[in-house]
């Protein structure tokens, strides 16, 4: 113990010994002087002459300088002092060779900056734990119906209640349904996103309120609904009034008491986890086990302590199998548990990891370039190195000095790169889809700094080691005698430099190939036949809430004149109302046809159910393939009608005329509440679920006959030209009918379409940028190597030209040297690209589709074209030094030293 303490104390003291050197030196000199005087006096006493006395004292001491040296070694930490010395030396050298330093530092700054930026996003999006207590225990519970290809389906009330009652693996299980609420009363009407929740939601999450309390169990009852607000909503709408807790607000026309306010920041975290932008939570769901087929709720559960995920999955499967056997209508339905963290990150993970790999490749290429620069530089410094070696610097010391130089370059690069990263991660946050969880929090933090430091040191060693060893292996006599031109070393340098260029080209090809695939994906995505024409279509949400609209017919009566007025506006081609906008979600409903009214349980067909106004097809640009669109004749009293999509018609009435067929939008043909409807038209297929998804069958019904399911209500308007200009006019028309309608989500269809592939586009842009960077770096790399080789061969070229070689011959010779390197690199890169193909092909479809949409992972044409690009770049980069060499005056070249 005390020995350790003594050692520790000694090191601490030695650390202190690094400072105030002058004072310490003076003190020791004084002590030694005292020592010598004492010794000399003793010697004089024993009868020596003064000179002899002093000489004897010095000899006995072992030399003044030597003693001071020994003392200094013990006083400080010699290693650190050498390091500091080397560092200062390196800094001086770098400051002198500005062209090299700027190029190398910028290259590293780009490489490290890009890596750090991507990592900062990876860190916050993928690695940061969710901000709840014991977040690993939180899971989402979904229903699934693998036979129909439905996974992560929302849960029916009856199933939720059975799960809740029968499981003993969860300490709590909560359900919630996303909803939009209209707030009126105190301020202007406002629609806010929120949820209707079971009272235990927040206790399952483990959240404490900022003000007030969470829901109580008795507030589960429908009549006992209470409200909890997000901090943001409380601040913005109610000015942070502390008296709000305990008072009531008007939600959808009803008074609801506020019991609590959630902590600031909760909304962001919560949005990041699963429910975007929720700001208001209302209790009073009052779940009753009546409906097993109507899937409504998201379910969140917390694993009981000591229960692991696999066990929970196992038990829940057993429960759902029991339910499936007990209730025929549940046939095919099972349960699916997903850890909450997994749920949050799984959509972004493949893309981010892909980008991280890509940006890592760019860094490698950058390192190869800087290594090449260092190599050339080391060759130029041969004499300096030789002289230092002759003066006693060991091999290790020389390597250390050169490594410290390369580390200094990479650290400077990292410092500059951090600025780029801070800036880059902001851009990334802006480019990413708005819903990307946690993206807003990304930026520079300790983890990111650590990452940057580690890759800076690693790259410093990586690109510094080979040149340092090359340079320090030196034949003293040869190097000192030689005056600069060095044929032997030059060849060796070219070989290592050439190897680096080959690697660069291989990596660049791999990267270009990956980027090429991604670009192809995006091109395909942009050319997907959407089934409708998104140009010049504006959409806005018109929530009608309040007692005057409780009768659904009143809502229909609101929209009919409104649509007429909007269509009368100048610049408007058509307007309609709809329940759902394509690509913004979809609602599957079961139905039966009159031809097959009693399908076996579990095989009830289903379709996306869309309630629309008369001019919907004209407005959206969806073609009618047969029959007629809806019109004014489709009144509540008239024949009940529907229009089906082409895919539905083909599936259920193959090679028959679907017009006049009858169907009922219910899984029970005997349901008295719902009418049989007659198909009057067939519309073109629409990508309701986004570009990636196949067409789903659709059933359209006129809102005049089914106004009660018109929620949520969206108005769609087709303009003659840019729709932005008419939005305000539309808004005025709505407000002139009811000034309390909180219009929201004004958007245009083209943005909606673009929004669904925003992640893919971001990935493509970044990958394209990285590939471009790689291309430039590889070009610079080969240019550097060939230029250097040419400068080494100036003499030889001079001889060739003197012997009659023409300019084109010399040019060809130099270009050939470069193209051989590029060709080898490209050949190796083909293997890398095949590796990428393999990797992509092995990804599960879910992860692969967003990266490779309708693109074969193995793609010879793409390989050929990116190879051609690289070879062209190489030829271009070699041509410049080649031309310079061939234009040289043979006489000057011969004399060149």
């Amino acid at each position, binding site marked *: 113990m*005390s020995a350790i303490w*003594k*050692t520790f*104390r*000694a090191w601490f*003291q*030695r650390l202190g010994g690094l400072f105030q050197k002058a004072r310490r030196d003076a003190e*020791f000199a*004084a*002590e*030694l002087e*005292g*020592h010598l*005087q*004492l*010794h000399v*006096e*003793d010697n004089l006493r024993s009868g020596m002459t003064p000179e002899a006395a002093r000489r004897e004292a010095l000899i*006995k*001491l*072992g*030399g003044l300088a*030597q*003693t001071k040296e*020994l*003392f200094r*070694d*013990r*006083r400080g930490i010699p290693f650190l002092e050498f390091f500091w010395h080397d560092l200062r030396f390196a800094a001086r050298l770098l400051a002198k060779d500005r062209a090299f330093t700027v190029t190398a530092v910028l290259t590293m700054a780009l490489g490290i900056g890009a890596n750090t930026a991507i990592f900062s996003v990876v860190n916050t999006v993928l690695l940061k734990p969710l901000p709840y207590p014991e977040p690993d225990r939180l899971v989402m519970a979904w229903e699934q119906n693998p036979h129909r290809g439905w996974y992560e389906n929302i849960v029916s009330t009856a199933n939720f209640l059975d799960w809740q009652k029968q499981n003993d693996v969860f300490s709590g299980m909560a359900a919630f349904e996303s909803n939009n609420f209209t707030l009126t009363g105190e301020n202007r009407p406002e629609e806010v996103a929120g949820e209707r929740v079971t009272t235990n939601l927040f206790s399952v999450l483990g959240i404490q309120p900022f003000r007030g309390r969470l829901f109580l169990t008795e507030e589960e009852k429908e009549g006992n609904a209470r409200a909890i607000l997000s901090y943001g909503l409380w601040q913005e709408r109610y000015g942070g009034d502390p008296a709000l807790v305990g008072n009531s607000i008007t939600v959808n026309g009803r008074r609801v008491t506020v019991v609590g306010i959630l902590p600031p920041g909760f909304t962001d975290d919560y949005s990041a986890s699963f429910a975007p932008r929720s700001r208001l939570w209302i209790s009073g769901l009052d779940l009753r086990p009546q409906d097993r087929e109507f899937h409504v709720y998201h379910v969140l559960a917390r694993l009981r302590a000591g229960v692991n995920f696999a066990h929970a999955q196992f038990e829940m499967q057993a429960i759902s199998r029991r339910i499936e056997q007990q209730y025929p209508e549940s046939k095919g339905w099972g349960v699916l548990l997903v850890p909450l963290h997994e749920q949050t990150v799984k959509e972004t993970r493949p893309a981010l990891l892909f980008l991280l790999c890509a940006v890592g490749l760019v860094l490698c290429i950058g390192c190869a370039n800087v290594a090449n620069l260092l190599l050339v530089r080391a060759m130029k410094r041969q004499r300096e190195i030789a002289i230092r070696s002759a003066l006693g610097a060991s091999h290790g010391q020389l390597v250390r000095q050169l490594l410290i130089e390369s580390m200094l370059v990479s650290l400077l690069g990292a410092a500059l790169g951090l600025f780029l990263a801070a800036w880059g991660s902001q851009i990334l946050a802006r480019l990413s889809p708005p819903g990307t969880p946690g993206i807003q929090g990304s930026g520079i933090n300790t983890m990111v700094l650590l990452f940057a430091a580690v890759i800076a040191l690693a790259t410093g060693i990586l690109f510094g080691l080979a040149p340092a060893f090359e340079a320090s292996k030196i034949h003293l006599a040869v190097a000192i005698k030689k005056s600069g031109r060095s044929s032997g070393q030059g060849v060796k340098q070219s070989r290592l430099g050439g190897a680096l260029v080959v690697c660069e080209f291989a990596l660049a090809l791999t990267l270009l190939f990956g980027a090429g695939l991604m670009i192809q994906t995006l091109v395909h995505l942009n050319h997907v036949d959407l089934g409708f024409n998104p140009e010049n279509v504006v959409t806005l949400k018109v929530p009608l809430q309040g007692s005057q609209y409780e009768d659904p017919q009143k809502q229909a009566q609101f929209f009919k004149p409104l649509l007429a007025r909007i269509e009368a506006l100048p610049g408007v081609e058509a307007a309609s109302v709809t329940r759902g906008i394509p690509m913004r979600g979809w609602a599957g409903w079961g139905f039966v046809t009159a031809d097959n009214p009693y399908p076996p349980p579990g095989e009830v067909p289903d379709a996306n159910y869309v309630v629309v106004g008369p001019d919907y097809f004209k407005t959206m640009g969806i073609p009618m393939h047969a029959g007629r669109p809806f019109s004014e004749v489709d009144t509540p009293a008239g024949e009940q009608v529907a229009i089906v999509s082409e895919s539905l018609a083909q599936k259920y009435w193959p090679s028959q005329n679907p017009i006049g067929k009858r169907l009922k939008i219910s899984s029970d043909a005997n349901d008295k509440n719902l009418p049989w409807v007659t198909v009057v038209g067939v519309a073109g297929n629409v990508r309701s679920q986004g570009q990636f998804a196949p067409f789903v069958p659709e059933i359209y019904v006129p809102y005049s006959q089914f106004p009660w399911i018109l929620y949520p209500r969206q108005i769609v308007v087709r303009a003659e030209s840019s729709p932005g200009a008419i939005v305000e006019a539309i808004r005025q028309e709505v407000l002139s009918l009811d000034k309390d309608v909180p219009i929201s989500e004004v958007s245009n269809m083209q943005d909606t379409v673009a929004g669904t592939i925003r992640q893919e586009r971001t990935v493509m842009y970044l990958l394209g940028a990285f590939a471009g960077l790689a291309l430039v770096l590889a070009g610079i790399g080969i240019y550097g190597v060939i230029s250097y080789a040419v400068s080494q061969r100036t003499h030889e070229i001079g001889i060739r030209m003197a012997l009659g070689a023409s300019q084109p011959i010399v040019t060809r010779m130099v270009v050939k040297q470069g193209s051989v390197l590029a060709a080898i690199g490209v050949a190796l890169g083909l293997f890398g690209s095949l590796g990428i193909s393999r990797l992509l092909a092995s990804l599960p479809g879910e992860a692969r589709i967003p990266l490779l949409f309708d693109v074969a992972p193995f793609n010879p044409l793409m390989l050929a074209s990116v190879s051609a690009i690289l070879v062209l770049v190489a030829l271009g980069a070699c041509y410049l030094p080649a031309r310079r060499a061939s234009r040289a005056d043979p006489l000057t070249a011969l004399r060149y030293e």
Partner: protein
Amino acid sequence: MGDKADVWQGTLALMILKTLETLGPLHGYGIARRIEQTSGDLLSLNYGTLYPALLKLEQEGSIESEWGVSDNNRKAKYYKLTRSGRKQLEREARDWRQAQAILAKFLSVTEPST
């Protein structure tokens, strides 16, 4: 420098500590003379090597130093034992004697007769 130097350093440190215990506060030259005299001609000591050893002991907190004036009015740095140094001396002296005893026993075993 190497293993031998470490042994030598350790021994030298012990000698310094013992000298300071016996004679009380003393300057570097005095310590060097004392060690040389005590060991007779057996030990030839470069006085210069003493100073890093003194510095090490001081860094470890076994001794401390202050400037003083010698008998013949010379300014000199005086070293003296600290409490922790005294303990270290006791411990190391004991270890040393033990090692010596073991080695002595070991070497005193007579060779088996043939």
